[in-house]
């Protein structure tokens, strides 16, 4: 080993505390990068492979009923590669011991027991036998959530007829990677299942022999999706087609896409914060190191070492830190990536979802760490290279202190001598002081920005479950029903109020933009649901015209006062124009609302109800649920409290787990910044501190001088951290919002406090570690040497 490299190795060991503190911050950058990009890539690769292997369709269309032969006509549309027709039918399920009715979406399986598109993957058991009409394959999540085994029997009401079913297989399909019941906010696998049944059996059960209710098709390469959708719609309109849609509007695909979008946002926002701080830290630590090694640099240059060799020597110091960081970060990132992937596997059902850490991701993380550390080393390297040997070997000129403006303020405030020492030292090294403040502020900002996701979720939960949904049960009918169905619900003992709900599938159009959605209506005088604006205001339904959610209005590019074209789906070729009366800034989805009267006018019918909101006497819950189970008109019941519980569990499981890591990571920044600042401060001031000890200052008093400067910088960083956190949180909220969710930006005041407390605690603990060095301060030795 060359002598300089030996020095490098010993320097790294001697400064191991500081090296490790920087490496931890840089490791957080690598870890979050490897975590988010690694999971993103794993999820994308898994999805793409699964889509290809199971022939996930490009376009989907639902209709009331069409002859199977319509598939041949669709196949003739230019650009269509494969078409497949099937039957999809909702069924209510009844298992002994179940309290509430559960729902299943039953899909038909082609004649050969399989299908061409959206192919079923069997996880266990076998496909249904054509000679046994009651056999079904159930989706894995449903089977697991209900603790069912192969051979389990349950009763289902399909198309109004009760039928015993036997689960003979467990399966997965690419169109149900994420399965969520219509109208639900998060999946409840115990109450909503996906079933696959023999085609003939389902035809018979639904009186649809020779007919289909769903089309799936794939496109030729280069075909226009919009063109094909338009032609498919034209073909299906007579059969009650509700509008074909591409993958982007496919619920399972959209949720998965949303997740990938959030991972991408994480990759873009979080690692850079750590990288910036690491650059600062390398800059100040290496800067100080070169300052203390001045005479040594001069000596080595006098021996004949080139500027390049000396620059490279210090660059290697920075790169060694990057290497340590990459190792730590890769291990931590891969470990967390595996954990996060298995968390995803609970919600997203793939045949195999494994975290795969590709070499490219590691190379990327290494390059980022090296660039960050190298950039930080540049300043110090330049100083080392510029030093001429003669100048370097002479002692450095004494630092010049001057009374600045802050200083004059301090004088007026009657600051003690020690206070002056602190202020003047800060002013003497403004860049380093600013970096310390900025680093701690960034740490707090990151903490705040991640912690406020809890507030955001809670606010969404509060708005959605407590202010918007004022019912206890949401009942879905098998098919739209008249007022008698609502009356029947209201008559159940214990039901306090029942209100009809209606959703009319439409396409809204403005200029060249089209969105598929449903116009939702509640009866006039409805009390069980409300529309809550982002700032908590309750928005009444307009007497005329539509109320659009902000999301939908943005997608259509319209505002209140504009006119949109409404096209009714489901078989009626009606187009009319409606004004946008108001916009409600909601959190969930792209939705449209109208009063019952407006909807009646649009649909020109007697406004049958698709379901009902029900308020009940809690004591009668069990009895009411039992009655609903037996009502043939009822397809499903969503219990608000159960959904709320699921939502809360999701926050606890996912957000709090993530939060734990981010608190650790953000604390790493504070620890890294404070530790290095304190060590540099200590090394610069050891002489002064020893002098004060000799003069009769107690250890505690001397410690306060050392920590006072840090404390002042950290305290200044807190308000700045609030500002940075506020901006970062807004950015992240916006980046995390998608077509499915708009996260509310609603940080609680206490979150600022918690973020500040965590930062202060981390700073205090770190400073205390450095302050312990005051105990070892050797007064005699320090005073023997000229500083």
């Amino acid at each position, binding site marked *: 080993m060359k002598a300089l490299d030996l020095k490098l190795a010993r320097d790294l060991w001697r400064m191991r505390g500081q090296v490790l503190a920087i490496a931890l911050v840089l490791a957080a950058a690598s870890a979050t990068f490897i975590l988010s990009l690694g999971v993103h890539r794993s999820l994308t690769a898994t999805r793409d492979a699964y889509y290809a292997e199971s022939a996930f369709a490009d376009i989907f269309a639902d209709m009331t009923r069409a002859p199977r032969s319509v598939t041949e006509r669709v196949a003739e549309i230019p650009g269509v590669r494969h078409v497949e027709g099937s039957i999809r039918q909702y069924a209510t399920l009844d298992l002994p011991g179940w309290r509430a009715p559960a729902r299943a979406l039953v899909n038909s399986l082609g004649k050969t027991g399989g299908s061409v598109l959206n192919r079923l993957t069997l996880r266990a058991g076998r496909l249904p036998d054509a000679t046994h009409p009651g056999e079904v394959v159930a989706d894995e999540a449903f089977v697991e959530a209900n603790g069912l085994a192969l051979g389990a029997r349950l009763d289902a009401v399909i198309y109004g007829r009760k039928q015993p079913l036997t689960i003979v297989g467990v399966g997965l399909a690419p169109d149900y990677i994420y399965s969520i019941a219509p109208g639900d906010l998060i999946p409840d696998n115990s109450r909503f299942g996906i079933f696959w049944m023999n085609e003939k059996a389902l035809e018979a059960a639904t009186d649809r022999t020779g007919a289909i209710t769903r089309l799936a098709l794939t496109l030729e390469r280069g075909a226009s999706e919009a063109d094909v959708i338009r032609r498919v719609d034209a073909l299906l309109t007579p059969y009650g087609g509700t509008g074909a849609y591409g993958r982007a509007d496919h619920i399972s695909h959209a949720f998965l896409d949303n997740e990938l979008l959030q991972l991408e946002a994480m990759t873009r926002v979080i690692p850079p914060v750590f990288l910036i701080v690491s650059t600062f830290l390398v800059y100040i630590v290496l800067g100080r190191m070169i300052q203390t090694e001045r005479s040594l640099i001069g000596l080595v240059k006098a021996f004949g070492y080139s500027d390049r060799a000396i620059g490279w020597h210090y660059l290697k110091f920075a790169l060694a830190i990057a290497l340590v960081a990459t190792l730590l970060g890769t291990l931590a990132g891969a470990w967390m990536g595996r954990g996060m992937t298995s968390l995803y596997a609970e919600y997203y059902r793939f045949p195999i979802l494994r975290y795969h850490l590709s070499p490219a991701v590691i190379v990327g993380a290494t390059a980022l760490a090296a660039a960050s550390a190298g950039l930080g080393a540049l300043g110090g390297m330049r100083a080392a290279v510029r030093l001429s040997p003669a100048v370097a070997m002479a002692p450095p000129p*004494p*630092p010049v*202190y001057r009374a600045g403006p802050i200083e004059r303020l301090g004088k007026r405030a009657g600051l*003690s001598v020690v206070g002056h*020492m602190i202020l003047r030292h800060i002013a*003497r090294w403004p860049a380093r002081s600013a970096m310390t403040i900025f680093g701690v502020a960034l740490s707090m900002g990151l903490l705040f920005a991640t912690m406020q996701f809890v507030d955001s979720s809670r606010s969404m939960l509060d708005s959605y479950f407590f202010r918007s949904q004022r019912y206890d049960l949401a009942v879905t009918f098998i098919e739209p029903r008249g007022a008698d169905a609502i009356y029947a619900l209201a008559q159940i003992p214990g039901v306090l109020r029942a209100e009809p709900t209606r959703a009319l599938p439409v396409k809204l159009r403005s200029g060249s933009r089209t969105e598929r959605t449903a116009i939702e209506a509640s009866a006039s005088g409805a009390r069980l649901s409300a529309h809550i604006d982002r700032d908590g205001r309750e928005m009444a339904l307009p007497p005329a015209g539509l109320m659009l959610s902000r999301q939908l209005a943005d997608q259509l590019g319209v505002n209140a006062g504009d006119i949109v074209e409404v096209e009714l789906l489901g078989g009626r070729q009606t187009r009319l124009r409606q004004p946008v009366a108001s916009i409600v800034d909601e959190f969930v989805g792209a939705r449209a609302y109208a009063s019952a009267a407006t909807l009646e006018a649009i649909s020109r019918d007697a406004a049958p109800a698709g379901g009902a909101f029900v308020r009940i006497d809690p004591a009668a819950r069990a009895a009411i649920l039992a009655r609903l189970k037996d009502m043939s008109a009822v397809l499903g019941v969503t219990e608000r409290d159960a959904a709320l519980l699921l939502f809360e569990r999701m926050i606890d499981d996912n957000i709090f787990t993530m939060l734990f890591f981010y608190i650790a990571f953000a604390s790493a920044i504070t620890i890294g910044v404070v530790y290095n600042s304190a060590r540099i401060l200590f090394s610069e001031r050891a002489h002064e501190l020893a002098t004060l000890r*000799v003069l*009769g*200052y107690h250890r505690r008093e001397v410690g306060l001088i050392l920590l006072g400067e840090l404390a002042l910088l950290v305290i200044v960083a807190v308000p700045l951290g609030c500002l940075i956190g506020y901006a970062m949180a807004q950015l992240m909220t916006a980046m995390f919002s998608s077509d499915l969710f708009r996260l509310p930006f609603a940080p609680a005041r206490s979150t600022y406090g918690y973020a500040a407390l965590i930062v202060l605690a981390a700073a205090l603990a770190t400073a205390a570690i450095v302050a312990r060095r005051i105990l070892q301060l050797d007064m005699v030795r320090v005073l023997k040497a000229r500083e």
Partner: protein
Amino acid sequence: MNAAVSDGAPAFRCSGLAKIYRTGETEVHALRGVDLVIPAGEILVLLGPSGSGKSTLLNIIGGLDRPSSGTLLYRDLDLTAMDDRELTRFRRADVGFIFQFYNLIPSLTAEENVRLVTDIADHPMDAAEALGLVGLADRRDHYPAQLSGGEQQRVAVARAIAKRPGVLLCDEPTGALDSRTGIRVLETLAEANRTLGTTVVLITHNIGIAAMAHRVFHFLDGRIARVEVNAAPIDPAGISW
């Protein structure tokens, strides 16, 4: 006049004082049993080659270091029995230090450097008064970097005497100064001894300075080889080197 001088009582008494430094396997005997009485109100000079134990003794009697064995009394206080807090209190109340390299705080002006001590002492003089005693009243607002070496050392002297210490411990106070400036510093030390009755213990390599002392202790190999009593100490102005 200081009480310590009027009753002629000793400021320090030590017997059998030894100090062993251990570095790894090796033991260095810095002091090998020193018996010594330092009368209050006198000027003492410690002479001897490097490594003879002068600085170790100075550090121990100043409460910066502890002996490995032996007894050490300052007036009635047993310094060997004191813990770190008590030693710090002892330094704060009774000891003024002056070093070869001044050890001023570069971020504080001359006056503020003196105030570092007057802020924590029991009966200090005013910082401005202390600077006046060393002839630097007009330079009170200057930072150390704006002062000459001699001026910096006089600020250090002002800082040391401002608390009216019982004892001034000086380790090579003129070592970094030219003779004219050095004598100026010695004069202020003599002045403090005369007017405040402060006991002055001074380490030097410069034999000439011994002429201003009441007593001279010659150190060799961690022991006092010889003690000279000077019946007629001369004024520092009469010294030259």
